[in-house]
């Protein structure tokens, strides 16, 4: 019942926006029909959807003012959780990714409780240090994870009538997961939960005096955020088929969602998605072909320029209001 009223309210207030976004998503589902010749495009888009989903998960937590540098821990745990589940219980990926998501959520919840008193840079550092723990376990618990050798032959995604793990399959899987996650995040951020997060980000002490339970909201938010990151890691593991501790517990997956969310605009719901799409497409189709050996510098410059000149990200440039809250 609550969901229905929430959705109705969404439509009333944000009808034009929701229409645009829904339309765009439907378009994306149809892209495979248009781009039969270049399934490379499908591949690039799949990657950007995965990054978008990861950034979206990260940004959910960032909404409450908690900046995490440790999402690679949830991502990697999701990858390992799902892969181990599928390999040991002989299931297909569509079942095991939930195990991955759950693993990510559990670790996130645990760290949410552990780090409950930390704020700002200290919280960020704690999450950064967090990445090392599951990495060390994965690297050394050889009987479970094969240690540094990694896991091979992780089962691929199989949709009816399409080849296993084909570009089309992965595209649809990533797009679907992104859409579902986007819906969940939009619902959360436009509900009381979301407003509580905004209030906490704005000023935690004041929010607590008006009755917003900081620990509770942080805990449930970080769990959802960890779940999302875990699902992303799980999808990653099954699409590539091979994972190693160093590969999935890499700082790369901590930094990436942060950069994309900031670039796209971290105060809007779809900011991270926009950021991922634009940055990934720019990098693949503009930077790389023009500067095959120097494109990384452009990436670094893009990040620096964003921070200096558009702290609200792309969505900030487009005039997305911060939902009426003045100040930062």
């Amino acid at each position, binding site marked *: 019942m609550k969901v229905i009223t929430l959705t109705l309210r969404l439509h009333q207030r944000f009808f*034009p926006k929701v229409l645009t976004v829904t339309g765009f998503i439907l378009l994306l589902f149809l892209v495979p029909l248009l*781009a039969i*010749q*270049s*399934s*490379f*495009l499908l*591949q*690039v888009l799949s*990657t950007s959807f995965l990054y978008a989903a990861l950034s979206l998960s990260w940004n959910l937590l960032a909404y409450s003012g908690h900046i995490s540098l440790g999402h690679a821990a949830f991502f990697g745990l999701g990858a390992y959780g799902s892969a181990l589940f599928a390999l040991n219980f002989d299931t297909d990926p569509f079942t095991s990714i939930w195990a991955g998501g759950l693993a990510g959520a559990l670790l996130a919840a645990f760290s949410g409780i552990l780090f409950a008193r930390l704020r700002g840079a200290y919280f960020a550092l704690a999450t950064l240090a967090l990445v090392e723990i599951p990495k060390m376990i994965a*690297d050394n618990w050889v009987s479970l994870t094969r*240690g*540094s*050798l*990694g896991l*091979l*032959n992780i089962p691929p995604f199989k949709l009816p009538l399409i080849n296993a*793990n*084909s*570009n089309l399959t992965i595209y649809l899987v990533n797009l679907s997961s992104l859409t579902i996650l986007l819906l969940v995040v939009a619902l959360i951020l436009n509900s009381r939960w979301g407003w509580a997060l905004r209030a906490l980000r704005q000023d935690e002490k004041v929010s607590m005096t008006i009755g917003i339970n900081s620990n509770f909201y942080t805990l449930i938010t970080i769990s959802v955020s960890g779940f999302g990151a875990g699902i992303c890691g799980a999808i*990653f593991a099954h699409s*590539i*088929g*091979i994972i*190693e*501790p*160093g*590969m999935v517990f890499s700082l*790369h997956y901590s930094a990436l969602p942060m950069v994309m969310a900031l670039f796209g605009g971290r105060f809007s719901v779809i900011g991270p998605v*926009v950021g991922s*799409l*634009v940055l990934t*497409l*720019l990098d*693949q*189709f*503009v930077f*790389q072909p023009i500067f*095959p*050996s120097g*494109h*990384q510098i452009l990436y670094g410059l893009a990040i620096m320029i964003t921070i200096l000149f558009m702290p609200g990200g*792309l969505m900030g*440039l*487009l*005039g997305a209001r911060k939902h009426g809250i003045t100040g930062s």
Partner: protein
Amino acid sequence: MNRKSNLRLGLLVCILIISFVLAGCSRKPSHEFIRIGEIDPLTGKLARHGLEIHEGILLAIEETNLKGGIKGKNVELVTRDDQSLPEVAYGLVQELVQKEKVVAITGGYVDTLVAVISEAARKSEVPYVAAASLQEELTKTKNPYFFRISKLSGFLKPVERFLVEVIKPRKVGILYASTPGSTEFATKLVEFLKIKNIQVPFQEKFRTGISDFTPLIIKMTRYDLDFIISGGFLPDHLLLIRQLKQNNYPLKGYLGPWGIAYPSFVSQMKKDAELLCSTCAWNPGITLPGTEEVSREFVENFEKRFNKTPSTTNMHGYTAAMVIIDALKRTNLDNNNLKNDLRNAISATDLILPMEHVAFDQNGDPLNYEHVIIQIQNGRFVCVYPPERATGKLVYPITD
């Protein structure tokens, strides 16, 4: 929404559409060129090695073109940088096959990247000849498009035989890096040594690039080791040897399968490199019997082109590229099933190169890849094992 933001939204959509259109444009297959793709880490952690592989491949391509190309057609190398990141490598395979229309892919350093590229190659049905790969299981995945010119046992077996037949130690210490290749090497070596009743009281895994080996060195002094095997990479050896000397460690013997048999190691370490051992697939002066002429030519051409002495990593790149070029010469280039025919031609390779007599088994593993054991004496690489290829005598122990 106001007009200003509408305009900006429109601009954003335009950018996205243009990107889509650009993405859709793929190169038309040219009839004057044969295109070979290369994916190597040219930036990032593994840049050093990726660049060396790249140089070897480049030389092979340029040499071939100078000699008239393949059946009159020039070869074009399409290079891509995977930034030492697996998911980037994965995506690049598709780009190379679909946009750039390459007929085969080569390159690769470290199994994390090679494994991922091999899976993508399987999906895109394009033959991939990896220049550097070790992990045994990679060839157990029944991937008809994956070939490699190196394998773990090429490093492992010579070291095993060398220890048992020549050194005959009682106690061995093993250090290894947390990469799949190094870990697998160490694990299998320890198993072998235990069967031969050689003790391994010291086994330590470290993360490559650590800044201080002193505690490990102090640990080692407890055991009176007859020989040390270190599966680290160049920077690890550079540091470890220096610190062993600084701590006055009584080093009797040291072998590093990776990173030592390089001219840059000798020039960096100077006299500290003396009497260290390594495995070596190829080096100027250490080449497959019968290929001395070709090897010398390679060294000369490389020095002229790149102003430095070639290393074994360069040669790995060169060998992988030459395999593809040789296979292309045996393939009918004007048909629609080129990639599969090429794949079959590669499978049937029988090519003698300075580094190895290249031939593949049905899993894509090289049949004849085997290192020799070398020792650095007077700043030069001297082959000390197997006896039939030895160019000098082993000095052991280093210190009494």
